[in-house]
């Protein structure tokens, strides 16, 4: 499943990230790479996602986040 399908309060691990070089380097440099554990803080329609990973609260564009594949509860 992709990151936008994770519900509030659920924990997940990033298993795959797709996209062009720009996106990959932007998303990984803020700390979200494959294997990173995250927790969904807020996932509401039409708003950027709010997640918690590597001790940091991070806001992510919703559309782009569909490129991040995760496994919940791993």
């Amino acid at each position: 499943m992709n990151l936008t399908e994770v519900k509030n309060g659920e924990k997940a691990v990033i298993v795959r990230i797709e996209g062009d070089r720009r996106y990959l380097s932007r998303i990984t440099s803020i700390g979200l790479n494959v294997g990173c554990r995250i927790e969904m803080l807020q996932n509401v329609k039409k708003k950027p996602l709010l997640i918690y990973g590597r001790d940091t609260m991070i806001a992510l564009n919703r559309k782009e986040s569909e490129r991040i594949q995760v496994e919940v509860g791993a």
Partner: protein
Amino acid sequence: MGNTRQIALLGQPNSGKSTIFNTLTGMHQHVGNWPGKTVEKKEGKFTYKDVTYTVADLPGSYSLSANSDEEIVTRDYVARTDLDLVCILADASQLERSLYMLADFAGIGTPAMLVLTMMDVAKNKGKKIDVRKLSEALGINVCSVIAYDKKTYDSFFAGMEEAIQSGKRLNADALYANIRQSEGAETFDAYLEKAGKIATPRRPKEWIAMKMLEGDEAILRELSIKGVNQPPADPKGALYTSDARFRWIESLLEEAVVDEKKTSELLTKFDRAALGPRSGKWVAFGIMILALAGAMIVAAPMMGIGGALPSLLNPLADLLGNIGVSEGIIHFIKATLITSLGWVVSMVGFIFAMNFVFGILEEVGYMARVSYVFDAGMSKIGLQGKALMPMIMGFGCTMGSTSGARVIDSYGQKVMTIAVAWAIPCGATFVVIPTLANAFFGVGGGILVMLLIILIMIVHVIVTATIFGAKLNPADKRSGMVMEMPPYHKPRWGFILKNSLMRMWDVFKKAFSIELIVCIIFFFLSYSKSGIEGSILYKIGTFIEPVSSFIGLKWQTFMAFFAAMISKEAVLGVLSAIFANSGSIVDTTTGLAATSDNIAQIVATAIPKAEALAFIVAVTFNIPCLQAVVSTYHETHSAKWTARIGGYYILTALLLAAIVYHVSGLFFR
């Protein structure tokens, strides 16, 4: 040892970089632009043990990839041969993530040291960091500071001095070992030879090969200049390198950090409201109103002094008459020197207040939340969500939006925010325009005029954002939000106060001379011995009347339009001078002569309605005022961009007037 040294501060956003820069350099700062780039260049100086250090505050970014001009400037700078030391900053409370900058730097041959900030926050989170172990593993000095407290900088200064003397470089072997264990290993090794063609001692082939693996455009361009053709990179390359970097960081921290996880609430009660899907906007508007009110209160004393200055100083100027100074010269002094002094004092008062209030909001960590809340709307016009904050300030005063735009971290978007915010009618406009509109069109018509202005404003904002965005934030460089929401901090009042005062002084020095010169020019343009008809401005106005009347401006309204660029209040003053003979144009613009009380009514009988509406629109969307121009120049450090924005507003105001004149001409007789 020579007596000057060059050091640079490198760090991610929210790493405390600017705070350290301000603490180190205090008043000795110079802000400009990198030649040929829309990137801000901040340099400062400090002295330690008789050695003068020049510090570059490099633009904050999350990595050294070539995603923006900021990042390209930064990474070229850290590999410069004349640089003595790079201080890499990292937030100790989020060490794993914030060390990514260090990991991306790793390989660069410039001497380096690691500076940890927010150790106190880390401690509260239950993290113990063994600085010595970290230093051994990295091969460079590691120190920690409380960014705003210079008393805690002893280990920083000692480490800096030693690092420059010994020239210690970051040991990147473990990182290279990681990449050689990854799926990208073969490609990495294959790239090394090609990388050697553009390698330098400060930028070795391993670092370049990592960037090639990422498909870094700037490096590939450099290679192709050298005739090295590079097949398209593995799209997953960026994943291999970031993976290698994070594995390196994790292994470093495994040794050096003891983490007694204290569970704390991730989303605090306040954040639930501040980031909530509905409540977020209400919290933001509430805080904006408080900020605007707070800024007005902080600014009030200085603005009061600025406003009172002429009435205090003008009697003094009159005394010059006693020592034989002619009346004409006294008048000149009043209209230029004293007027501009009064204006500049009020202006810096307002800028001080904006810096103070926005400084607190930023320092506390709330600004990032504003970005989140308004991301959806603002990103449509190519701006960050938090750009809304300075724009709203524009309803109070355009100086508020120009100086508030400093919260935007990318230079291009900052200039864009300023350009867009000029279209927001300011408090003075909201006094002048309804006065005129009511006189021409009655109360009901006046309300319609105000609605028209709001409508034009919205279109103007979108159009201006599109036009300026094409150059300053091109569509192909725009990307969705990937932003950290920093933890909340208590504001350091004293530190913010000191910084705001320093900036105020800085603005004062620059702004006074500019405003004085403009006042002098305006004085001569509008000066006349024999009524209004003797002035150069009148001659220009009547000369171009055949053209300007096409857009609905006769020479009278054209002169008022011209004066509106100096101050919005001057519009009524100039009309008063022309139609009610209440004094010369110079005097009514600079406030030396009072505006006739019923000037709006007098004008209403003299100007046809279509012309009046065109005039109202032209004045509203003209250059806001001289102060706005000066503060824009100060904030952008660029005469070029200030002139572009100014020219754009004059042209669009005239264009809007033409449209309004001809369209409304169909309805009014």
